[in-house]
């Protein structure tokens, strides 16, 4: 037997079929399944919740006694510092928190993928510069940067989304770049190039689909991080005062002394909401990461 035939057949790992297979694997894994369940529940609440239990921010209490009330039949999770229903407010907050997380991640993913493609595929000065910029943003501490940008740029929801997105793209870029570096020397790329494909075509049509699964897994984790970042910003008082997110609720709970008053109904629901959503994304992301990263597959 001669050794002229490669031991393993090179095959692209991207494509729709592969994606479906990976998701099936993720669902089969108990940790992954728990994650999907949590996410499913969260999206259900965020989409249907405000329809079934709408929240009117102008529906405030009537007297001092209606502030920070414990749960009653009328208010299942009691009232906040303006006498508003905490149950409905929590449901409404899920929309804001999720929206910010998803949009910020979208920005992060787009910027990160493009930067990673550029850094990974172009040889020479452009690539080197992009790598340096990526490393630079990786090294900058995130929360101080977010806080500073919010202080300078302002506190509207749009600005917050952009700020979070711009501070989290570097991890995506790094993953994309390392994937590309390992892919671009692969045999099947050589074959495609021999057939006359341009660099751009190779990058977009052949490399990108193989990069996307890992990017996706990373993106799921970035979503978790973005939701945490928004909650932290809002808690520190730098959030959008008009749109109440879970972080904003916790900010006001802290300000008006909910802990000292024993107002657990104001402190627990938004926090648990954040934990449930972030945990859902984390579990799914962790599972996908294990599936897609061949080195981790045995665990």
């Amino acid at each position, binding site marked *: 037997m001669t050794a002229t035939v490669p031991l393993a057949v090179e095959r692209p790992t991207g494509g729709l079929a592969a994606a479906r297979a990976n998701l099936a694997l993720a669902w089969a894994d108990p940790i992954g399944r728990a994650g999907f369940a949590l996410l499913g529940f969260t999206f259900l609440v965020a989409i249907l919740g405000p329809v079934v239990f709408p929240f009117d921010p102008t529906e405030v209490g009537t007297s001092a006694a209606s502030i920070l009330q414990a749960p009653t039949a009328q208010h299942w999770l009691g009232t906040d510092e303006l006498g508003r229903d905490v149950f409905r407010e929590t449901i409404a907050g899920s929309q804001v928190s999720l929206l910010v997380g998803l949009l910020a991640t979208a920005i992060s993913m787009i910027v990160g993928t493009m930067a990673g493609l550029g850094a990974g595929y172009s040889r020479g000065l452009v690539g080197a510069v992009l790598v340096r910029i990526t490393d*630079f943003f990786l090294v900058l501490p995130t929360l101080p940067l977010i806080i500073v940008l919010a202080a*300078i740029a302002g506190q509207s929801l749009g600005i917050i989304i952009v700020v979070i997105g711009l501070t989290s793209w570097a991890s995506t870029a790094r993953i994309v770049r390392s994937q590309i570096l390992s892919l671009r020397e692969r045999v099947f790329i050589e074959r495609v190039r021999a057939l006359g494909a341009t660099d751009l075509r190779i990058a977009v049509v052949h490399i990108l689909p193989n990069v996307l699964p890992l990017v996706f897994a990373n993106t799921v984790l970035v979503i978790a991080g973005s939701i945490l970042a928004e909650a932290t910003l809002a808690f520190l008082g730098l959030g959008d005062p008009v749109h109440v997110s879970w972080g904003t609720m916790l900010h006001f709970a802290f300000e008006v002394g909910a802990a000292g008053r024993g107002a657990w109904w104001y402190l627990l629901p938004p926090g648990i909401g954040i934990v449930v959503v972030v945990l859902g994304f*984390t579990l799914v992301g962790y599972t996908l990461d294990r599936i897609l990263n061949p080195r981790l597959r045995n665990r």
Partner: protein
Amino acid sequence: MGGLRYLGRKLVQVALTLLAVVTFNFYLFHVLPGDPIKLLARAGNLQPEDIARLRELFGLDQSLPVQYLVYLRDLATGNLGMSLTYRQPVVDILAERIVNTVELLAAATVLVIIIGVVVGVIAAARRGTRVDTASVVTSLLFWSLPTFWTGLMLIFILGVWLHAFPISGSGTPGVVYASLGAQVVDFGAHLVLPTLTLVLVDIGQFVLITRSSLIDVLTEDFILTARAKGLSSSQVLWRHGVPNALLPVITTSALYVGLVVGGAIQVETVFSWPGMGRLIYDSVLRRDYPLIEATFLVFAMTVILTNFATDLLYMWIDPRVRNA
């Protein structure tokens, strides 16, 4: 020699990165807001003559490159400006606060790494069992906790409800301590809740990293050899497995400094700990721009320098790196 060349390269990289951070800082606070005088002027009603004098003072009537050089010169001479809130040099304020943050983070980092690694080792050793799954799930759960909310919960449960630990500050105020020991005990009591918060939230990463790294190592040939030689399980684990699995742990420890900065800000705010984290929060609340700028710079530079120190550590531990 490969080592010296590696060191030289790293030094150049660090210097460049520090310069990049300083330049980025300059951009953030002097270029991006459009007009830095606008930021200073927000503090009070300035007459046109005052504004002109301020421009001259800060070299703002010069071109941008010259301003940049003035900025670098000021940094090099330790002139970080005057705080608008305290009306004192920023450096003085920073110096007071840095120590407090270092104390907090040192305690937390040590505990996180030790406990995280130990649990990770145990999980890897009992891979596939319920202990392992529980460790993984718990780690992921704790990682999902928002730091500030965890702090609030601890205040609520251990501070307010059970009255077990003090919930704010780094010491009991206005107390004359009977002895150094009494002061240390008081400080330690105040350290418990903030440190516990950081430990809970950050321990998961170390458990998972240690676990996965060790699992990798445990499948390698030399482990089989050690087992074949008749060494006991725990000897194989602790004497051969763990030391070789530590490299990724060290990487994560280095990155941890960057991550824990964010945690420090939240914890110091929630527990009124008088450190750098709370300083950046307070100064942002008041838009005290000289203070914000300096604090951010300190955070960024600390992370960069810690990464550099870790690279040096690598160089010492792993000879393969030197020749790369």
